[in-house]
């Protein structure tokens, strides 16, 4: 089942300033969808549109849980938890009171407060006023509020922003646990691939308001492999070019070496065999792997 679906999602703050340019998001049930993009690419705008915090002025199709958001707002929001940018907290109240406000509005059983406080490791700090909380504690309390109603979908905007490495690991583990044990679908936005690549199952990469990649994380890995090249230096580069070119098409030649598009491990063995059989000495054969971070930067630069 598709939990989030948008068709040709567009949004503009002013007439000539199109922030989102036809986004077709598809988030499957049970997935952890990483929504990546540099700062200012339109991630928060997309999330705000998904939650009805911005008007859908272009009348794009926004469906959550298979229903049009506009017509089923209450039903959709009752199954959705969210944390947008900094958590929305009443700093003059205690952590418990902040949870109690949402609990009363959402009409949730009172024992859920104890449960979420335990999950987020905030039990001992629940009586403390939020103004005395650290940034990490505030972030965890924001998550506790989002989790209070046992949502089926959690939309988190930059959930690890500003957290120290320990805090980032804790949130990551929590997301994985909730996804695995409770089957919660996550839609996480981030501007850093390294922050979420360890937990996501699916990725959407946003650049200048356009979705430049969407698919399973393994698809991105495959794309990464496709962008890898083999750099070969031999005793006769011209002859090697012709030999390899008879079998592998994507080949270029520079002054000192040949470049072949990497396909798989067997391809390397085949090239070696072909060159040895034609009496060409191989001086160097190097796989140039494009790491995901560089790839993400390249994709979003386009």
């Amino acid at each position, binding site marked *: 089942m598709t939990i989030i679906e948008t068709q040709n999602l567009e949004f503009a703050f002013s007439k000539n300033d199109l922030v989102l340019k036809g986004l077709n998001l598809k988030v499957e049930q049970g997935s952890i969808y990483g929504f990546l993009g540099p700062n200012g690419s339109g991630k928060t705008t997309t999330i*705000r549109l998904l*939650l*009805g*915090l*911005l*008007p859908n002025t272009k009348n794009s199709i926004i469906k959550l849980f298979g229903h049009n958001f506009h017509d089923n*707002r*209450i*039903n959709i*929001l*009752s199954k*959705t938890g*969210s944390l*947008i940018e*900094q958590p*929305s*907290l*009443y*700093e003059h109240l205690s952590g418990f009171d902040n949870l109690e406000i*949402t609990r009363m*509005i*959402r009409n949730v059983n009172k024992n859920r407060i104890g449960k979420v406080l335990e999950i987020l490791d905030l039990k001992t700090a629940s009586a403390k006023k939020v103004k005395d909380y650290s940034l990490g504690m505030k972030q965890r309390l924001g998550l506790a*509020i989002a989790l209070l109603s046992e949502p089926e979908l959690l939309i988190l905007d930059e959930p690890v922003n500003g957290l120290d490495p320990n805090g980032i690991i804790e949130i990551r583990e929590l997301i994985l646990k909730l996804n695995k044990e409770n089957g919660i679908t996550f839609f996480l936005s981030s501007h850093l691939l390294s922050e979420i690549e360890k937990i996501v199952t699916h990725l959407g990469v946003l650049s200048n308001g356009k979705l430049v990649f969407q698919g399973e994380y393994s698809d991105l890995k495959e794309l990464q492999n496709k962008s890898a090249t083999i750099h070969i230096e031999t005793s006769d580069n011209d002859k090697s070019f012709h030999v390899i070119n008879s079998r592998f098409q994507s080949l270029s030649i520079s002054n000192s070496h040949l470049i072949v598009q990497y396909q798989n491990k067997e391809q390397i063995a085949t090239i070696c065999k072909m060159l040895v059989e034609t009496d060409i000495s191989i001086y160097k054969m190097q796989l140039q792997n494009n790491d995901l971070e560089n790839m993400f930067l390249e994709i979003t630069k386009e």
Partner: protein
Amino acid sequence: MPAFVSFVFLSKWKHLVPQQGHNPWDDFTEMSWKGMGFIYTPFFIVLLTCLFFNIEHKSNTWKHIFTLPILKSSIYISKLLTLIVFVVIFYILYIPIWIGCGFAVGLIKPQLQLTTHSPDYISLFSLCFHSFISSLGILAIHFWLSIRFKNMIIPIGIAVLGCIIWIALYQGRAEQITYFPYAYNYSTVNPPLWLNLKKFGIFPQHEIFSLLYFAIFTSLSYRYFIKTFKG
């Protein structure tokens, strides 16, 4: 205000000893309510409304509220009703404190005869009711302004300007004061004798205008809250 009036009564008590047959509570009522009318509208109502909304603006909690499964109209109505309840609570607290202060002054200075007389409770409750009605216009205006502007200095600035204009109109005995909502509460507790206020049933003209302001600005703020306001 009751404490301040009590202080005045205690320090000037020799001038305030009632003559035979005169109820000392009438003077105590007049002084207290005039002072309250002067401070209540510009300071209490405006500050209450501004601070009430500032909690959400400051905590950045609108985005959380709007992602909860409740209708925006319900949020609006609950905010408006809470504010009205706050104002009613003000009267509920003001009256016993005021009466308590009066009796305390009477105990300290028996010559003032405040303990041997009692206030006119019917007039008191009538005054509360009319004071509340005359405050509704300003409440709705500042309710709208507080939704419209995140910076609470703007509504407070408008209120200060409104009060300056009201005092100028009052001092200049301008009849236009009838149309000026910042003057309504004071006009209720201390009706200007130079102004011929028409009455419509139990309501003087300015209270009818207060209700009209309430209706107009509540409609405006409701429309803005539902259609445009995103927190």
